[in-house]
């Protein structure tokens, strides 16, 4: 058989993690990401790994903290309400400077919300998933194939920068099936985990992984050092994709599954003679600020398209320093926008039908 397979996004999250050398998964089931845990429950024992269903999301994220502290590649996954439950643990992981990967296959919210796809955790993921002065890397795949690539990249980035990396997907991407090819991934240099609590064997001093600092001055120093790393990430790790933006009057900005729908709308707009383009942030943090700012000189306006009430739209305004008007179009609650709806908005922004 050839190397191409037909897989669900959720399954690819699991398979790509294994191929990235991750042998530990701690999680708790929740629709629409449960196939991931189901896949790993079957697959992990075959590769000498462990897939453990914890008693709760809170337990799962603290198991991740433990395994990460021991220097192991580890990840957890959930959907929106479950990610909220993990938020305290995620802050502790950031405060402990340990690497891990966290998957959010988003569904409608707030509260218990619904089980259909949404992108309404953008704020939570990029701004406030946990207390304290903190960031972590957030990657938003738009294709099942892209999940395979980004999952490997997420583990590498986590190890290099010693922090959580989130894969922010949504129910549609998790549930849909597409052909996928697990090709060779470009190798990154991963620093040795000299900080890991994996047994000193009387050869070295104890390592301590901890997020508690008694002295405010020391804590300040630690946080400032961490922000230097954040600055380096903002410099070096921005990911994005562009489609026909060079001469675009209307720049549609959209990520994840919605970007694919927006792309169809952009193509339709071009057929109508409207100069539309698509800018797709792949890293939501670090947000591609410079790249968007460079489009602001030529474009007439920006349109943020998301499955929420308007969250990324603020990041776009900041990125382009409000040089041009930025609008939002979105559906929420688990409703997926159609290409026609987005096209209508593009036409409107371009000054109506010719």
């Amino acid at each position, binding site marked *: *058989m*050839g190397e*191409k*397979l*037909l*897989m*669900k996004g959720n*399954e690819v999250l699991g*398979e790509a993690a294994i191929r990235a050398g991750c042998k530990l998964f701690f999680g708790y089931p929740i*629709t*629409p990401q449960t*196939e991931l845990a*189901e*896949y790993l429950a*079957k*697959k992990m024992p075959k590769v000498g790994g462990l897939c453990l269903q914890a008693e709760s999301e809170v337990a799962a994220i603290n198991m991740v903290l433990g395994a990460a502290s021991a220097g192991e590649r580890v990840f957890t996954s959930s959907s929106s309400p479950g990610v909220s439950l993990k938020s305290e643990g995620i802050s502790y992981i950031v405060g402990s400077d340990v690497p891990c990967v966290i998957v959010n296959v988003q569904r*409608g919210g707030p509260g218990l*919300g*619904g*089980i*259909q*796809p949404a992108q309404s955790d953008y704020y939570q993921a990029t701004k406030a998933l946990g207390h304290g002065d903190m960031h972590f890397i957030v990657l938003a795949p738009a294709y099942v194939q892209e999940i395979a690539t980004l999952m490997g990249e997420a583990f590498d980035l986590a190890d290099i920068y010693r922090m959580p990396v989130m894969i922010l997907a949504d*129910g*549609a991407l998790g*549930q*849909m*099936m*597409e*052909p996928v090819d697990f090709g060779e991934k470009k190798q990154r240099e991963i620093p040795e985990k000299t900080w890991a609590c994996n047994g000193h064997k009387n050869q070295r001093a104890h390592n301590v992984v901890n997020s508690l600092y008694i002295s405010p001055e020391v804590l300040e120093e630690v946080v400032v050092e961490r922000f230097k790393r954040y600055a380096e990430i903002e410099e070096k790790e921005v990911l994005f994709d562009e489609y026909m933006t060079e001469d675009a009057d209307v720049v549609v900005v959209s990520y994840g*599954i919605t970007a*694919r*729908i927006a792309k*169809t709308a952009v193509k339709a707009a071009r057929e109508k003679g409207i100069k539309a383009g698509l800018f797709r942030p792949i890293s939501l943090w670090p947000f591609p600020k410079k790249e968007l700012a460079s489009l602001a000189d030529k474009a007439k306006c920006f349109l943020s398209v998301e499955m929420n009430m308007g969250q990324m739209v603020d990041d776009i305004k900041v990125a382009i320093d409000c040089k041009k008007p930025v609008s939002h179009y979105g559906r929420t609650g*688990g409703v*997926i*926008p*159609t*290409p026609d709806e987005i096209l209508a908005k593009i036409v409107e922004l371009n000054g109506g039908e010719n």
Partner: protein
Amino acid sequence: MIFDKINKRLVVLCGHYGTGKTNIAVNLARYAVSLGKKVCITDLDIVNPYFRTADNADELKSLGVRTIIPEYANSNVDIPSIPSEFQSVFESDELCFVDVGGDDGAVALGTYADRFEREGYDMLYVYSAYRPMIRETEDAMDSLAEIEYLSRMKCTGIVNNSNLGVETDAETVKKSVEACKAFAERAGLPIVFTSAVVSVAKLLEGEEGIGEILAIKDSTKKLF
């Protein structure tokens, strides 16, 4: 002729999830209607939140197919339920296609195993050589055994629904034949038919060694 090989009134579609059971059930229902049969289709999927027979309910109803779908299908009520109307399939004179959820979704059948036994049934295992958890014969055998154990029923045939979604071409189907045959031989079950979307089925006409082909329409709901 497919309905010479499937000759029971109750036809159950089971298999690993994501192999296309719903798609096959819906297409078999359409095909049976085109042959003038009185048809019923029932969605017994208690595990899939997004893609299910219910997505095709309107079209099937318009063809005169009786559809039995769970009350909460495609809503936000995250509760698996079997519609009470399902009991009627044991009393009717229709050709009934029963679309079962993937893998352990087969447990939904177990409750009714005795009634299926009394009435007689065909149970088709839908296979795909492109699904990683069952592509190898050993893994497919494990999956088959799990489903038979949970459903307390026995599979009577295999459907080869190997595909790569929109990227499926004639080669995709041809390459799958050997793997499917190896599995069928090991399981001691006949391959009832191989499916291919209409455009690909045309290209496969006259191809040796594939056996009977059912030309299908991709009936998977398009999310966008």
